């Protein structure tokens, strides 16, 4: 009974999603939620990783070896995309909700979000993959 009740809304939600009238704002809304859940998960992982610090340098370095592989460098770059979008769009939401003019210019704000985001992604890509400061 409970299972039936729980299942129906999810199915309806998926149907709604598939028939969603996509426009810039609704896309940002969905992306904000997906990136938010991912970032909460990552925050747990991040705190858990730093826990290695109290196990001493050997254990910590072993744990961090994982993050030096090329695969994880790409993953870190993608993580930055999530952080970036959630942060920039979050500022947009705050402007939208807390200021008088925000909701009238929200699509223009979204363009700014994507523009700053794209530039920062390129910058971070250079930092991660080309190591310009030679560390």
């Amino acid at each position, binding site marked *: 009974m*409970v299972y039936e*009740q*729980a299942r*129906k*809304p*999810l199915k309806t*939600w998926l149907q709604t999603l598939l028939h969603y009238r996509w426009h810039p704002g609704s896309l940002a809304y969905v992306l904000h*939620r997906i990136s*938010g*859940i991912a*970032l*909460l998960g990552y*925050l*747990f992982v991040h*705190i*858990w990783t*730093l*826990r290695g*610090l*109290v*196990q*001493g*340098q*050997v254990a*910590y*370095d072993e744990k*961090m070896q994982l*993050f*030096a592989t090329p695969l994880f460098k790409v993953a870190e770059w993608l993580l930055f995309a999530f*952080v970036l979008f959630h*942060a920039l769009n*979050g*500022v947009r*939401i*705050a402007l939208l*909700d*807390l200021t008088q003019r925000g909701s009238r210019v929200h699509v223009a704000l979204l363009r700014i979000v994507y523009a700053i985001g794209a530039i920062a992604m390129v910058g971070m890509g250079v*930092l991660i993959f080309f*190591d310009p*400061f030679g*560390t």
Partner: protein
Amino acid sequence: MKRWSAFAWYWQRISGLLLVIFTIGHYVTVHWTEASGHEFNSSVARLSNPLWQFWYLGFVVLGLWHGVQGAYNILRDFKLPRAVLLGAVVVLIGAALYFAYLGFDTVLTVHEWKHRP
């Protein structure tokens, strides 16, 4: 209840804006180079400084609160049975408390382990 919801609504936005500042600071100071962010000694040195400890305790609390409240806001958009919603809330708050404890304990005790191999 209504007042609490209104507070939660504002707090989600204000904590989010604070987290943007924290995140920029975190990226610039910690992850500017791979060495500054991933090396044992630099991490321990940072977390032995009371100012950084204060900064990171705040970061942990704000991040977990904003994240768990955000997940709760998403759950509230679904017509979930009361028991499922309650169970999910217990799991979310439980996870937040556990990782807050883990983060606090790491930040506050890491300097004691500085000389461990």
